[in-house]
């Protein structure tokens, strides 16, 4: 613990130094380098883009992104098509023609290009520390900027879930995602999709929840609203289980073990209540001595006994709320 305290102090000191230290970026991204060498003359009238890419330009107004880059007060390197793809004249040049193509750049370069403007959401170092960045996922793997281009999810869309066609009241994909999150995330996480086909699951296929209600694909400004500092994500919806209770159940509180996931499989199972197992076997994983001797045959909570197994304010054995 002393070592950790020392490292913390050194780190905070280095951060403080950061306020005054100069940070020169030698390993600038391709997009940064391209914009750095551009002059005002390299930017052309936006209408010129439409001469070669008419479909994209005409339909761009259907994308929310169009509203974000249309301000003429923005610097040239943040405006319109060229704000993302680089100066048009460099793209058109006969020699050394270059363009920021998000499908051809490496995931790292492609994401760095997006983060030129999205620093309000996160910095490049924030992004680097995410699981998605580590797995070479790029922003454009999930987000679709143009509404009329192929979204690269043809096979995922083939795998339609029957429940999605029966139900109407589904929330539309947010934040320019390529598809509803069950389809989009499932295209890379098929085993999770399979779990959602189970008899009991969170209502993600039904469109009542989205993957991002629980998972942070990347940092966001308002992430604070979906994180309970004590028990994490689950209790931000299941607030009746948030506590703190006078009598906390150790694994539920996450004091030891993995919290809710010690008993539940949140994507879905064929067992009731998305439990890892059925009836008293669940509790007997830890309370092995109770399996055969303590009211055998009964379910610990349904029989009216330990009905408050998530925590109680009145009973240390969780018999009452």
């Amino acid at each position, binding site marked *: 613990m002393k070592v950790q305290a020392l490292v913390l102090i050194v780190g905070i000191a280095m951060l403080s130094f950061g306020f005054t230290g100069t940070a020169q970026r030698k390993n600038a991204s391709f997009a940064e380098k391209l914009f750095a060498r551009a002059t005002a003359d390299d930017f052309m009238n936006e209408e010129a883009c439409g001469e070669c890419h008419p479909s994209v330009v005409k339909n761009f107004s259907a994308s929310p992104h169009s509203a974000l880059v249309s301000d003429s007060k923005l610097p040239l390197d943040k405006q319109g098509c060229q704000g993302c793809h680089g100066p048009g004249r460099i793209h058109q040049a006969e020699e050394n023609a270059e363009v920021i193509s998000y499908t051809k750049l490496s995931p790292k370069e492609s994401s760095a290009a997006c983060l030129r403007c999205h620093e*309000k959401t996160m910095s490049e170092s924030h992004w680097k520390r995410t699981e998605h960045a580590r797995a070479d996922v790029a922003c454009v793997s999930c987000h679709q900027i143009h509404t009329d281009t192929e979204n690269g999810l043809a096979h995922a869309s083939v795998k339609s879930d029957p429940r999605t*066609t029966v139900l109407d009241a589904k929330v539309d994909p947010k934040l320019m995602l390529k598809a509803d999150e069950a389809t989009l995330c499932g295209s890379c996480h098929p085993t999770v999709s399979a779990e959602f086909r189970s008899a009991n699951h969170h209502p993600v296929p039904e469109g009542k929840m989205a993957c991002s209600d629980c998972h942070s694909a990347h940092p966001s400004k308002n992430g604070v609203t979906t994180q309970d500092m004590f028990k994490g994500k689950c209790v931000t919806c299941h607030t009746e289980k948030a506590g703190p209770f006078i009598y906390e159940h150790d694994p539920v509180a996450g004091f030891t073990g993995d919290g809710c996931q010690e008993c539940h499989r949140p994507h879905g199972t064929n067992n009731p209540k998305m439990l890892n197992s059925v009836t008293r076997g669940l509790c007997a994983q830890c309370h092995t001595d109770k399996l055969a001797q303590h009211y055998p045959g009964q379910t610990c909570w349904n029989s009216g006994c330990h009905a408050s197994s998530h925590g109680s304010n009145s009973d240390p054995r969780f018999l009452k709320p």
Partner: protein
Amino acid sequence: MKLKVWLSTGTMAILAMAATAGWAQEETKQDPPATETAQPADPANEQPADQTSDSEEKEAPVKRNEFSIGYTSSRGNVNLKQHARIPEGFGIHNFRLLAPGTEGRAWAKFIGRGFPRQDNVLQGLAILNNGHTVIRGIRTEYGFYTKDWRTKGLSERRDVDYTIDQSIAPGIGAFAKYHSFDRQNRYPAPRDGDHTRNEVLAVGVGGKVLEGNLNLAVASRRTSDVTGAQPKTLQKQYTASYSHDLGDVMSLEGSFGYARIEQSGLASSNIKTYALGGNIDMGPSTGLQFHLGRTDYDFNNIQNAYIRKRLVTSARLMHHFNKWSVQLGYKHQETERVRKDHTFVDVPKYNEFDARLAGKLGPARLTIRGSYQDLLRSAVVQTQDTRQMIWDDKAMLQTKLDGGNDKVQVYAAHTYRFHQNRQRGVEMRWNNLAFGGSFIATPQVSLFGEVAFDNFKVQGSDSGQYLDFYFPNARNAALGFNYTKDATLGGSASLNYYSSGDVSGTQLTLSVYKQLGEDHKVELLIAPWRQTDKLYGITGYRATILSARYTVRF
């Protein structure tokens, strides 16, 4: 109260703004919305975006707005509605209005689904002030029936969520968010239902400050239990973080969080978190990430065991070579756990190691990852049986292979998990195997299939093999078929099957659509769904869902 009234009219305000902006119809070719990916890709339409055919030169009025109305009948008991209510009778399936924000007007989108009754959604997005202001609003309402061995009443949830994002300076943005939800769960007797009303209000600011990135946020989360079983709770959270690049090879982030939890009739609790993390680029293809975190808990009410401090240290080394990447991770965790009788503090310690290897094998991608958690020191439990209850070892190994081409995509994944408690002689082994794929046979026909197995082997010294009885093996399968004759006619069939222990179910869904002219579409759906439960027959259902829908674009 005034705030609530104001917010309850917020959705309508977004609609009004959008209407003011005008549901403009541009003179461009018609394109489906980006999110409508339910149809298989038609290679005939797969021309590069920058190639334009002669027909596209003739500009047709774009019709981005959509309205769907239909009739649905679902014959079955309430067990059918364990996750959501199936629509009944006539209703608006979907309406979508889009103002594309041309000529300097606001960009806006408004969507409604599932009206006039049962589960429904209202969703709006408005981008104003040249993109400097973004307002989102979502109102959802849905109900479901808890599936159990006795019939219950309807459980319901209503959500209202508004977010405003505002640019306040170049590179700096602020947000305000209000989210309220009412959640009522009904369970079979003797368990009491619960009913909570919740409000979350948060504001924050973030962006580039002094060459670094600063984020500040304040949130309050208020929960009221309508049944009176739980105290009213108010949690106030304050978070701050600052990250900075130190030269070209290192970035650091420090963060601090404080939460105060106030509960009616009880003393307040406090939580403080401190964290320091960062990246070190050790070369063009090698990096090191690290994290140090400390959380102090000040729980004044808990009368049994609790933890008062948690320390986490982790590091991860990553390296890319050719088309492969490898990661090695290490995490050490210590907690100060106050015993149930508050006489002593134990310090359970864990080490966790993980590794991940991922890369290309021809057209396929192979991912192998594994983790092992080792309990170095346990905590004393003061239950009747004082043997430890914490897992000594937890291990996981997953191998995933996926890949394909434009025609075929396949995947196979195997996951093995092992949990062991030596003192209690419990060993749990869980194998999960899933494989599947999709095949675009012709431009008209596509197929998919998926199979998953869960296999458990659990034993405990107290009960021999008896514990294994409570971990039923499971099988899930899905098959699908899509047919698109041309842009005007198509259909699909899909079958979902699950089976575990006493429960099994099949969900067959058949649908066909016919385009009537350019802007009109008719869809028919029939879905016989079944579930059987050998132990408690009452949880099963037999239902046939019939649905007809008409959609117009304008």
